[in-house]
């Protein structure tokens, strides 16, 4: 068969146009590379736009004692020391400069009295550290990066989905995809590719993530032979909306607690006293999520199965000024005035600590020519991410990935792509139209979400995880036989059929890694192995494709140099 497709050539192709992708594009442009950015949605709609609370950076504008060392220590402790220490160090050192840069490109953060960028408290951060704009920091960040990118001349391919990486021997040579609008095929030839595709939350039923979060980048990288790491560490944000049903899972920013919000159970008890009396509501997300979950499971939950989160003790004007979108969200979607009464909240699948395994300095993956940054990459956050460390991650490692990808492109000759790969990729896309009477992708997706929610959730055990793997096998088989109605013109059923493949791959990687790790650490809690196990504290789980099947192996956590080891151990 001869496949019809259009072709575009770039030095650096970036997949994903959230904070990491756009910052990578700017980094690569700086090096004079010809840069293309592909995104599944319209420009400016990526998940970064939903980030609310702020960007963590030790600027010391509010608490003058803050410095990169403290930020580094908080990040390592939050990640239960499973982090790649060098990434955590680079992140803490470079984040302030990356924030200043945003300001110089036009971003307008909330201000201190003396005219500097204001910083707020957040869970797990020793000092007030989050640079923010009310509760819409992500929007400010993405607009700033997007305007800068458009001005400097990146080519943006909007509403375009990549379904396969194309290779030349052992290296990445391009990507195959389709235009969501017209359904036509497209081939991007590139010397370097940066994965900035975000997370995987859409494999769970209750999630704060949008439809885009289907793990595409991780699945594409895995299929092409790159290593994934830390896939068992899925963050459940403690506070998602729980009522009404249609809004279940929508994020309630941690900034509510950062600004003084208090958690209570149905009998009015401030239950965090039991779980983390020192940090209370500003404990790390894994701890707070488990606390709420436990309160509900033990019968102390609210009417709709959550906890109360109350900020109404603060003046109404202050709440509306600092948390405007929360105010509107609850007022419009749940008929609750948060300046007068409490919100009902419960855990929601929010963030993936694991992802493509990368080099700390350059963000390069184990596959030549492939780089990854942001949520799609693993390493910085270890077993649990601190709030606010995501936006700074996007900026710091987005930039580094862009710079390194451009440098790689500079010294790499153009690759050749054999048409066989392209034909095969096209064939795979078209098969669902040819099958008749197959199952709808929507029912398979719904069942996948049930499996992951019920069996691979906040608390896990061996039996559930084995059952989940069995379910996933059946779901994969059903996905191989699904069929799609209608034409190739903007067809969401067809689009979901593609996204489903990626979700099944990452779900399997999560489940296998979770089954292997027989301990509880950070976001990974095994009921059958409740404590920290020091031997597991020195190992990362790595997932790689071997002979068409998923293989798992252990890899030693890079050891901290002695000065940093001492810093992390200091009692503060």
């Amino acid at each position, binding site marked *: 068969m001869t496949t019809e497709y259009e072709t575009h050539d770039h030095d650096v192709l970036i997949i994903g146009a959230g904070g990491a992708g756009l910052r990578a594009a700017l980094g690569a442009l700086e090096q004079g590379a010809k840069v293309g950015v592909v995104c599944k949605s319209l420009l400016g709609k990526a998940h970064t736009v939903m980030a609310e609370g702020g960007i963590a950076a030790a600027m010391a504008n509010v608490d003058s004692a803050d410095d990169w060392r403290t930020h580094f220590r908080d990040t390592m402790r939050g990640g239960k020391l499973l982090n790649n220490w060098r990434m955590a160090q680079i992140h803490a050192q470079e984040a302030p400069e990356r924030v200043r840069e945003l300001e110089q*490109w036009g971003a307008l953060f909330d201000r201190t009295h003396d005219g500097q960028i204001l910083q707020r408290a957040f869970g797990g951060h020793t000092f007030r550290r989050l640079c923010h704009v009310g509760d819409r920091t992500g929007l400010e960040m993405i607009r700033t990066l997007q305007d800068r990118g458009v001005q400097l001349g990146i080519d943006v391919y909007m509403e375009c989905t990549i379904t396969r990486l194309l290779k030349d021997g052992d290296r990445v040579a391009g990507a195959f995809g389709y235009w969501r609008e017209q359904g036509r095929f497209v081939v991007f030839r590139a010397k370097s590719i940066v994965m900035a595709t975000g997370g995987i939350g859409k494999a769970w039923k209750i999630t704060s993530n949008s439809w885009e979060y289907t793990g595409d980048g991780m699945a594409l990288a895995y299929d092409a032979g790159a290593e994934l790491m830390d896939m068992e560490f899925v963050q459940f944000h403690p506070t998602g909306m729980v009522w009404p049903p249609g809004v279940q899972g929508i994020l309630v920013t941690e900034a509510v607690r950062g600004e003084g919000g208090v958690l209570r159970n149905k009998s009015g008890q401030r239950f965090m006293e039991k779980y983390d009396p020192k940090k209370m509501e500003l404990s790390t997300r894994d701890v707070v999520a488990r606390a709420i979950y436990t309160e509900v499971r033990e019968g102390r939950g609210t009417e709709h199965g959550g906890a109360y989160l109350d900020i109404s003790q603060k003046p109404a004007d202050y709440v509306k000024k600092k948390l405007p979108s929360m105010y509107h969200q609850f007022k419009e979607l749940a008929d609750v005035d948060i300046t007068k009464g409490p919100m009902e909240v419960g855990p929601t699948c929010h963030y993936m600590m694991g992802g493509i395994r990368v080099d700390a300095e350059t963000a390069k993956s184990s596959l030549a020519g492939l780089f990854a940054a942001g949520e799609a990459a693993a390493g910085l956050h270890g077993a649990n991410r601190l709030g606010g460390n995501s936006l700074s991650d996007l900026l710091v490692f987005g930039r580094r990935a862009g710079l390194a990808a451009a440098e790689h492109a500079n010294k790499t000759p153009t690759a050749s792509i054999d048409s066989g790969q392209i034909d095969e990729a096209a064939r795979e896309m078209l098969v669902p139209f040819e099958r008749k009477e197959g199952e709808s992708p929507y029912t398979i997706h719904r069942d996948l979400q049930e499996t992951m929610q019920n069996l691979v959730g906040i608390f896990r055990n061996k039996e559930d995880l084995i059952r989940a793997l069995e379910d996933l096998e059946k779901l994969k088989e059903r996905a191989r036989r699904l069929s799609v109605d209608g034409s190739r013109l903007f067809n969401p059923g067809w689009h979901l059929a593609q996204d489903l493949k990626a979700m099944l791959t990452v779900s399997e990687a999560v489940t296998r890694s979770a089954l292997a790790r027989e301990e509880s650490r950070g976001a990974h809690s095994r009921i059958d192995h409740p404590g920290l196990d020091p031997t597991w504290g020195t190992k990362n789980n790595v997932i790689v494709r071997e002979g068409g099947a998923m293989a798992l192996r252990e890899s030693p956590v890079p050891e901290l140099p002695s000065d940093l080891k001492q810093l992390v151990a200091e009692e503060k």
Partner: protein
Amino acid sequence: MAEAIFEVFRGNREGGQPATYRVPIAPGMVVLDALHHIQAHQAPDLAVRWNCKAGKCGSCSAEVNGRPRLTCKTRMDALPLDKPITVQPMKAFPVIKDLVTDVSWNYRVNKKIPPFEPRPGTEWKMYQEDVDRVQEFRKCIECFLCQNVCHVLREHEEKEHFGGPRFFVRVAALEMHPLDSKSRTQMLKDDLGIGLCNITKCCTEVCPEEIHITDNAIIPLKERVVDEFYDPVLMLVRKIRGA
């Protein structure tokens, strides 16, 4: 279980018509939930744009019972259920399929606007009272509902000569940025055609972010254009100086 009847536009560039769907109602349900229900159970190829489902991304704009809305923020219990709920694509933009329209024109307009340009030697200090009014404009989520209702675009189709409320908001954010040094009044007058706006405030009414588009962005910008180009005293001065 209570049901709602939906009449959703199905079609493409060549034309189309409403199709009828029955959807069970759940507490707190929004129109986007109903569209998702239709996709999952009745019409898997129903084209809808959406992302966050939380009113933050501005993707799911459509016209519900003739009113331009974000479908993720339109509660079913705020709509009369004794007659069908109509859902139409935004009228001011060409239909691609069903509820998805071609909004690429907006991105082309955006590209023309000169970006933020700080004064040389800027000291990066700003005070909250100076950034407050700009932060209002920066709340824009680019849902393009303001563009959709603006009669200059919707009825008169002046896309070649007019930027529309969204981009007046963007220019206002740049012009009023405490540290910006560039003037965009010439472009407001010539390229973005701000004079064509006759401040009927339709844009302000539909803004889901409640930005006071007309009062806080468009009118002050119009004043700047008038001051610069139509002030009789300045015009006289310029004439005398031969400028």
